[in-house]
């Protein structure tokens, strides 16, 4: 089936540094998402993105977070500067449409550890 690829799968980073998480969505999909899962907690919505713009973001999407998809390449989540509480698994997802019944396809996650 359709696959969403995430790079890197794991990253350890010093607090205060910048990190970029990359997502290669399903090729004909138009909508992109990031979700965050802290160890032992529920997966939570961060942000969704369409046509070069953020459509909606949650309160977890702090000012230090940004997303972009330059020239149809990777859909990226950048955190600058990182904080200890940013340690989590970040899941990228994509869908063809935004209709609530559309299926989201998820990547395997990028595990971020901030030390």
């Amino acid at each position, binding site marked *: 089936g359709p696959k*969403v690829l995430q790079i890197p799968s794991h990253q350890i980073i010093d607090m205060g540094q910048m990190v970029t998480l990359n997502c290669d969505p399903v090729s004909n999909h138009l909508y992109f998402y990031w979700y965050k899962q802290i160890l032992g907690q529920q997966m939570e919505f961060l942000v969704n993105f369409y046509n070069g713009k953020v459509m*909606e973001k949650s309160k977890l999407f702090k000012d230090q977070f940004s997303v972009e998809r330059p020239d149809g390449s990777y859909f990226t989540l950048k955190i600058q500067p990182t904080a200890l509480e940013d340690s989590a698994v970040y899941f990228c997802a994509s869908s063809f449409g935004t209709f*609530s019944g559309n299926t989201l396809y998820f990547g395997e996650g990028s595990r971020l550890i901030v030390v």
Partner: protein
Amino acid sequence: AQSVTQPDARVTVSEGASLQLRCKYSYSGTPYLFWYVQYPRQGLQLLLKYYSGDPVVQGVNGFEAEFSKSNSSFHLRKASVHWSDSAVYFCVLSAATGGNNKLTFGQGTVLSVIP
């Protein structure tokens, strides 16, 4: 506000036994409901989804789920589990109005199938 509760953090069953994973939701409107599965070292995969019609929906690999509006539930079932069904299962809700495909996840249930 909407929420999803999976009351069982872990379920262990023997291979060949039947399975039910419980899911309760809270949402004032009409929900889209999904079950996703996450196998070890893989991304989330859609098992099945429900919006309207027959309250029993069939999914992949012999899974089915039954929607109950009166009980606000969407339990997942399988008649006979296989060891390869061992994974984490997520019950997920999407609001039917407002779009943007913002998903609300349950906490997940870890299923262990004993050979």
